[in-house]
C-alpha cells in the first residue's frame, strides 16, 4: 500500500465519475457545518442550506446516472485518511451506482421538502439538525462508495449515530428517548454481527479491502457463517422480522423528513450491503441461503402488512408498511440467490431486477407518504388516525400528491409499485424450473403469500388514505388545516413525478438495474428497445405496458366524459348525503381506523397479542379500548432483556468496590495468562 502524495490525489480527482462524486458528497458536511454559523436561524439553515443540499442530491443523481449509462467500468480511489496502513478505499461500480442514483433521486425530494418543513422551536436547533441531517446523507453515500470493510464500518456507524441524534431531536419527550435508545441498541447489535461477518470473510488473509475478500475462497462453513452474520446484521438495519422491533418505534418518533430518509434511504443501504456481500463478495454458493432469505422476506412482508392494517397512528402504519416492503425486496433477493445457485442466470437476473426496482420505488413512494404525514402533522397537530379525516377539502395539494403515493405503494398499475411487484410475481412463475421438487411444490405457496401481501397492502393504503383525507373531518379544527407551503409542494411533486415516470416508462429504471445484474450475475433480462412495453423474458410469455395503461384509461375517460356531456347532460344538484335516508349521521359514524382494521384482526388473530376492554351495554359513558402487541416482544425480547439483566446482576458480585479485591483479580488474570503462555 503506497502512500499517495497530494498531487497524485489531485490528478486522481480530475475527470472520473468517482472523484467528482466524492467531491459532491464532501459538500454535504460542509453545508452541515455552515449551519453552525447561525444555528438558530431557520431562514438561513432551512431555506438556504437545505435547498443547496438538494442540489447536491441532484448532482449525485446525474453523476450516478451518467456512470450507469456508460460501460460501468469500476473505478477506485485510495485516500490516505484513517489509520496508518489502513487507507480509505473508495470504489464505484454498477451496484453502488444504482444505489447512489436512488439516494440522489429520493434525497433531492426529501431535502427540498425539509427546506420548507423545519421551523423554529421543534426540539434541536435548526443548525444542529442541519448538521446531523447532512452528515447522515454523506455517511450513507460513503457506505455505498466504500471499498474496504474498515471505511464501510466507519461510515456505517456515522450513519447510525447521526440518525440516532435525528430521531431523538425532540428529546424532551420520554417515549422518543426510549425509541431512540432501542434504535441505538439494535443498530449496535447489528453492527457487531456485520463486523464479525467481515472477520469471517477475510478468511485468514487479514486483508480488509473488498477486492481481497472477493478473491479469497472460503470453506462452506465460513462462507455460511459470514452470510448468516451479514443477514442478521443487515436484517436488523433493514427491519426484517424478528429484528424489526426498533422500526415502528423509531420511524414515528423522528421528524417527518427524517422518517422519510430513514425509511426511504437508510433501509436501502442495508439492502445494498446485503447484495454486495451475497453476490459480489461471497459469490452465492448455496441454494439454502436463498430459501432462508426467501422465507424471512415473505414472512416479514406478510407480518408488516398485517400489522400495518391494525395501526391507528399514521406514521406507525407507514413504518409497518416499510417492514412489508423490505420483506418484498428480500423476497426478490432470496429468489435471485435460489436461481443463481441453481444456475438459472436469466431468472436470477429477473428476480434481482425486481428487488432493485422495488428498492428504488420504495424510496420514492415511502418518502412521499412520510412527508405527506409531515404536512398533515403540521397542519393538524394530530398523528392519530382517529382524529383526522376529510383533509382532501382543506389540503388539496397534499391530498392529490399523497393519492399518487398511495396508489403506487398499493401496487396498482400504471404507477411504479406495480412494475416491481409484477416483476417479482413473474420471477415466481419460473421457480418450477429449479431442480428441487420440494422447493417446486412450496414456492407457489410463497407466490400466494406474496399476492396476499400485495393485496393486503392495497387494503392498508385504502385505510390510510381514506381515513386521513376522505370522509368527514373527525375533529372540528380540521376544517382550518392549511395546505403545504411551496417548498414542501415541490419536494412532494418531485417524488410523485418519480413514481409516475417509473410507472409508465420503467425502461430507464430497468436499464439501470440491468447494469447491476450484468455486473453481479453476468446476465441481463431481455433488453427490449420497445418504448411500448416491457417483456422481461419474452413478449409471448408476459408483457406489461404502463404507458398503454395510462393512455388507454385517460382516453376512455375523456371519450366517456365528452360522450356523456353530448348525448345526455352535465347537470348537478347538491344535496345532503343520503345514507339510506338517515339524516342524523355525523362524522363519528364513519369507520374509525380500528373499525377499518377489524376484519384483519378477526382473520389474522394469531399474529397479535390483543387486550380489549369492551364496555357494558348499560354504560352511560362507554369507552372502547384495544391494545395490540407484537408477539415477538413477549416471546423473544423481554426474556432476552431479563436474561441480560440477570447475568449483569450476577456479574455485579465481582464489583465489590474494594481496591484490594480488584488488584487480586488483575493478579489472577496475569497468572492465568502466564500459564497459557508458558
Amino acid at each position, binding site marked *: 500500500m503506497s502512500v499517495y502524495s497530494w498531487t497524485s490525489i489531485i490528478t486522481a480527482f480530475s475527470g472520473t465519475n468517482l472523484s467528482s462524486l466524492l467531491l459532491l458528497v464532501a459538500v454535504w458536511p460542509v453545508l452541515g457545518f455552515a449551519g453552525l454559523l447561525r444555528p438558530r436561524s431557520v431562514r438561513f439553515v432551512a431555506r438556504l442550506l437545505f435547498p443547496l443540499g438538494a442540489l447536491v442530491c441532484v448532482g449525485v443523481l446525474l453523476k450516478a446516472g451518467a456512470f450507469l449509462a456508460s460501460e460501468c467500468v469500476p473505478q477506485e480511489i485510495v485516500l490516505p485518511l484513517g489509520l496508518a496502513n489502513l487507507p480509505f478505499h473508495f470504489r464505484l461500480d454498477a451496484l453502488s451506482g444504482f444505489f447512489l442514483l436512488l439516494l440522489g433521486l429520493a434525497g433531492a425530494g426529501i431535502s427540498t421538502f425539509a427546506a420548507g418543513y423545519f421551523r423554529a422551536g421543534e426540539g434541536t436547533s435548526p443548525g444542529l439538525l442541519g448538521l446531523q441531517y447532512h452528515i447522515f446523507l454523506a455517511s450513507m453515500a460513503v457506505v455505498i462508495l466504500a471499498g474496504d470493510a474498515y471505511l464501510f464500518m466507519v461510515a456505517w456507524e456515522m450513519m447510525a449515530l447521526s440518525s440516532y441524534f435525528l430521531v431523538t431531536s425532540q428529546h424532551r419527550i420520554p417515549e422518543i428517548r426510549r425509541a431512540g435508545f432501542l434504535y441505538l441498541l439494535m443498530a449496535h447489535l447489528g453492527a457487531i454481527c456485520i463486523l464479525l461477518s467481515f472477520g469471517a470473510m477475510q478468511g485468514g488473509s487479514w486483508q480488509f479491502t473488498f477486492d481481497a475478500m472477493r478473491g479469497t475462497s472460503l470453506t462452506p462453513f465460513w462462507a455460511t457463517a459470514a452470510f448468516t452474520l451479514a443477514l442478521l446484521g443487515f436484517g436488523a438495519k433493514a427491519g426484517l422480522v424478528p429484528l424489526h422491533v426498533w422500526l415502528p418505534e423509531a420511524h414515528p418518533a423522528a421528524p417527518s423528513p427524517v422518517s422519510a430518509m430513514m425509511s426511504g434511504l437508510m433501509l436501502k443501504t442495508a439492502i445494498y450491503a446485503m447484495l454486495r456481500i451475497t453476490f459480489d463478495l461471497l459469490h452465492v454458493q448455496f441454494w439454502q441461503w436463498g430459501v432462508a432469505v426467501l422465507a424471512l422476506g415473505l414472512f416479514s412482508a406478510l407480518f408488516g402488512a398485517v400489522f400495518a392494517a391494525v395501526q391507528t397512528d399514521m406514521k406507525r402504519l407507514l413504518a409497518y408498511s416499510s417492514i412489508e416492503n423490505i420483506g418484498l425486496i428480500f423476497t426478490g433477493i432470496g429468489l435471485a440467490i435460489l436461481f443463481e445457485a441453481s444456475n438459472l442466470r436469466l431468472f436470477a437476473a429477473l428476480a434481482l431486477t425486481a428487488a432493485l426496482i422495488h428498492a428504488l420505488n420504495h424510496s420514492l413512494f415511502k418518502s412521499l407518504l412520510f412527508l405527506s404525514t409531515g404536512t398533515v402533522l403540521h397542519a393538524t397537530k394530530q398523528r392519530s388516525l382517529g382524529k383526522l379525516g376529510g383533509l382532501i377539502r382543506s389540503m388539496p395539494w397534499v391530498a392529490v400528491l399523497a393519492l399518487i403515493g398511495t396508489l403506487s405503494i398499493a401496487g396498482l398499475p400504471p404507477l411504479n409499485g406495480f412494475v416491481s411487484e409484477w416483476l417479482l410475481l413473474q420471477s415466481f412463475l419460473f421457480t418450477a424450473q429449479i431442480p428441487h421438487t420440494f422447493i417446486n411444490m412450496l414456492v407457489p405457496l410463497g407466490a400466494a403469500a406474496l399476492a396476499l401481501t400485495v393485496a393486503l397492502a392495497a387494503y392498508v393504503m385504502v385505510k390510510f388514505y*381514506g381515513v386521513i383525507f376522505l370522509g368527514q373531518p373527525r375533529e372540528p379544527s380540521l376544517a382550518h388545516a392549511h395546505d403545504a407551503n411551496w417548498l414542501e409542494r415541490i419536494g412532494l411533486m418531485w417524488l410523485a413525478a418519480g413514481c409516475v415516470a417509473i410507472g409508465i416508462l420503467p425502461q430507464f429504471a430497468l436499464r439501470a438495474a440491468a447494469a447491476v445484474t450484468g455486473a453481479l450475475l453476468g446476465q441481463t433480462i431481455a433488453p427490449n428497445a420497445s418504448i411500448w412495453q416491457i417483456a422481461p423474458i419474452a413478449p409471448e410469455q408476459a408483457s406489461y405496458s404502463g404507458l398503454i395503461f395510462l393512455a388507454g384509461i385517460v382516453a376512455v375517460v375523456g371519450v366517456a366524459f365528452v360522450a356523456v356531456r353530448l348525448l345526455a347532460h352535465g347537470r348537478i344538484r347538491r344535496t345532503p348525503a343520503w345514507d339510506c335516508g338517515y339524516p342524523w349521521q355525523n362524522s363519528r359514524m364513519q369507520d374509525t381506523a380500528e373499525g377499518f382494521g377489524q376484519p384483519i384482526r378477526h382473520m389474522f388473530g394469531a399474529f397479535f397479542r390483543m387486550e380489549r376492554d369492551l364496555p357494558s351495554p348499560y354504560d352511560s359513558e362507554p369507552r372502547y379500548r384495544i391494545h395490540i402487541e407484537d408477539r415477538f416482544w413477549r416471546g423473544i425480547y423481554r426474556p432476552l432483556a431479563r436474561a441480560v439483566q440477570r447475568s449483569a446482576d450476577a456479574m455485579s458480585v465481582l464489583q465489590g468496590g474494594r481496591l484490594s479485591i480488584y488488584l487480586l483479580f488483575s493478579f489472577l488474570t496475569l497468572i492465568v495468562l502466564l500459564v497459557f503462555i508458558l
Partner: protein
Amino acid sequence: MRVLTFARQFGEVVLAIAIAPLFAGWIAQCRAWLQNRSAPPLTQTYRMLRKLFHKDAALAVDASPLFRTAPYVLFGTMVLAAAIIPSLATDLPFARAADAIALIGLFATARVFMSLAAMDIGTSFGTLGARREMMIGFLAEPALLMVLFNAFLLYGSTALPSLVDGYASHPSVIDPSVIFAAVAFVMVLLAENARVPIDNPATHLELTMIHEAMLLEYSARHLALIEWASSLKLFNYACIGFALFLPWGIAIHGADGASALLIAVTALIVKLALAGAALALIESVSAKLRIFRAPEFLAMAFLLAVLGLLVHLLLGVSTHA
C-alpha cells in the same frame, strides 16, 4: 393490414361495451325464470342506463372531485381490460399491453378507486362497503394468482393470447389440474363480481351489502357508468375464463378471415349464453354466506387451485420419471 388489426381491436371493444349489459340482463332473466318469477325483458339493463343518464345527478354537498372522477376511472379501466382480453381474436394490438397478472392489477386499480370514492362522503354504509370490498379483494387475489400459475405450468405463459394459441396447438392435452383451476376460477368470479354466495346484486338489506353499499351515494350518470362498468367487469371475467378454459372458437394468430371472426362472434355469444345460465343456476341454488364465512369460501378456492398445481406437479414428475 395494420389498419385492419386496429379496426378489429376497435370492433372488439365496441362489441364488449355493447353486449356487457345484455349479458347482465340475460343472467337476471335466467335467475327470474329459475325462481318462478316473471322475467324482465333482455333490454331492461339498457333502459335503466338510459334513464339514469338523463336524470340530474344528486351529489352530496361535500363530495370531493375524487367522488366524481371515480365512475369514469372505473369505466375506463374496464373498457381497457376489455381491449386487452382476447375475447374474439388473439392477434390484437392491445393484447401485449398486459398479461393476466397485469390484468388482475388493473382490476385492483378499479377496486381501490371505487373503495376510495365510497369513503369520500363519510357515510357509515360507504366505509363499511369499502372495507368489505377490499377484504374480498385481498382474499380473492391469491386464489386467482394460483389459477394463473396453473395456466403457466401448462402453456408456459401468462399472456392470454399465447394461452389461447397454445391451447389451439395442443387441443388434445387435457390436464386434470385444469378442472381444479376452473372450479377455483368460478368461485373467484362469483366473489369478485358481487354474486350470490358472497354478495347479492339484487339486495335491499343494507347490512348485508358489499358492492351496493359503496354505490349508495351515487345517482344518475355516475351510477349509470358504475353499473355499466360492473357489467363490463362480469363480461371481462367471463372472457378471461373462456380464454383460460374454453378457448374454442377464438380467432387465433394467423386466422384473419371474416369467417374466422364470424365463428368467433357466434362462439362468444353461445358461450356467454351458457355461462350466464350456469351462473344464474349457481346463484339460485346457493344461499348467501355470512360475511365472516367469505374467507372460508375463498380459502376453498385457493386450496382447489393449489391442489391443481400439486396434481400437475405430481403427474408431471411421474410422467417424466
